[in-house]
């Protein structure tokens, strides 16, 4: 149990995927203009990230490793992620049209989120077992969601600030992201991973 807690603390705070490992920056910058859409993106990403880390673990352990095809892992993980995203989209579309409408374009966009592929590959590199892979994927997703939601709340405030013209929009967003990353450096050393 302690081990899972450590993985969670490590992925959410110490090695936050966005602010410390700099993965998944495209949706972080792209979908953070409004809090509502950031929340939708966070929900969808959490679901997909957890599911895809499980699926890619299964594919690796039971298909790629026995057949000695591990050099194909990147391309097969991309395939797995695309399938999971497509599957999620279909399920959400059928079961909750409201959520589907809210998430809209974000669902297919998750395919291009490098954090998803990053988690799948890191799971293999760290030789996480099945349960650890699930917790690792979930923790990564929670860390991503937290950073995204907090960032979008700040951006809504900065959007109405009197920022000098050359720095408006993405530029000040980048500066803000950098300062957030600086703040997260305070967690260094909490967990040795």
């Amino acid at each position: 149990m302690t081990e899972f807690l450590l993985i969670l603390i490590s992925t959410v705070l110490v090695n936050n995927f966005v602010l410390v490992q700099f993965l998944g920056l495209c949706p972080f910058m792209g979908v953070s203009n409004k809090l509502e859409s950031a929340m939708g993106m966070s929900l969808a990403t959490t679901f997909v990230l957890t599911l895809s880390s499980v699926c890619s673990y299964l594919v690796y352990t039971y298909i790629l490793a026995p057949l000695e095809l591990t050099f194909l892992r990147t391309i097969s993980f991309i395939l797995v992620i695309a399938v999971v995203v497509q599957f999620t989209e279909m399920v959400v579309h059928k079961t909750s049209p409201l959520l589907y409408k809210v998430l809209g374009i974000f669902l297919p966009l998750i395919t291009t989120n490098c954090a998803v592929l990053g988690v799948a590959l890191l799971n293999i590199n760290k030789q996480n077992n099945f349960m650890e892979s699930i917790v690792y994927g979930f923790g990564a997703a929670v860390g991503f969601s937290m950073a995204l939601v907090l960032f979008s709340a700040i951006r809504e405030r900065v959007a109405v600030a009197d920022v000098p013209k050359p720095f408006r929009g993405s530029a000040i967003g980048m500066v803000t992201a950098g300062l957030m990353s600086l703040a997260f450096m305070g967690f260094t050393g909490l967990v040795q991973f």
Partner: protein
Amino acid sequence: MALIRVTSPHVHKANRTADVMRLVLLATLPGIAALSFFFGWGTLVQLLWASLLAVGMEAALIKLRRRPVLFYLRDYSAVVTAVLLALAIPPFAPWWLTLVGVFVAIVIAKHLYGGLGQNPFNPAMVAYALLLVSFPVEMTRWAAPTVLLENGTLGLGDTLALIFAGLDPALVDSVTGATPLDALKHRGGLTTEEAWHSIDVLANGVGAWHAVSAGFFMGGVFLLYRKVFTWHIPVSMLATLAVLSTLFFGFAPDQYADPFFHLTVGGTMLGAFFIATDPVTAATSNRGKLYYGAGIGLLIFIIRSWGSYPDAVAFAVLLMNLAAPFIDLYSQPRTYGHAHAKRGLKEDS
């Protein structure tokens, strides 16, 4: 009888920014006095140098943005930022450290966001965190309290030479040492009890830090009395820190520091009354302020006890700064006569 009709506004003295800032500067005086008494001339030199730099940079930036320079300079906000930064960095830090810090605080953390009132992060703490991450050696070399120095502390001339004319390593080593938080963190295999007896700065020097904290506490109470800020943030922050450290100290006194130590050493008091209460970067509603303060207390305890950095006020404040807009959204008081706002997924979004 003719009644004199008086129309609003009835309060004639507006609470101007400059007045508030002057009060804050006034309230730092006991802390500054204690710092200078126990750690030598360094603090005063840093204060003057940082204020000079801050006012210069502020003026240059306002000029660049084609705003009225004198009007903005007179609100004292640049000086307050400079003073808070100068109080936080080590008294014998080299001049360029302060220069980098003030540049980051005034230019990046404040004016890139549009100046006073629009910055999401506390400028002084951004600068402090950046310096701590980038120059850990210079930033952790705090002045040793005068009582621990055999030859007494440096005179004004020597202090100036040390800060501005470059480093004489032997001289620097002779007047600096670890802070109590640093000493307790890097105590090797000692238990807390043993560390208190065997480490010099804990056994004999910790009184200096207590005095400085007492100075900032007095200043903070003065500001509270003058209603510069409400009680919510300092009280919830200090209470959270006290409760957490009491719990952990109660269960494992060998491993953790006692609550009194946590409250009176390091930047706790300065942070609680002068930094966390910054009205721009803190949460705004009273309930939000309670969450905000509690979050800072919690993070300070976590990072101090288990993280790599000895003190955590700057990081804790920055982390809660970045959560403040979110806290604000979810702690808005209900408008009288209206129902609570509905959160969550909406049909029309």
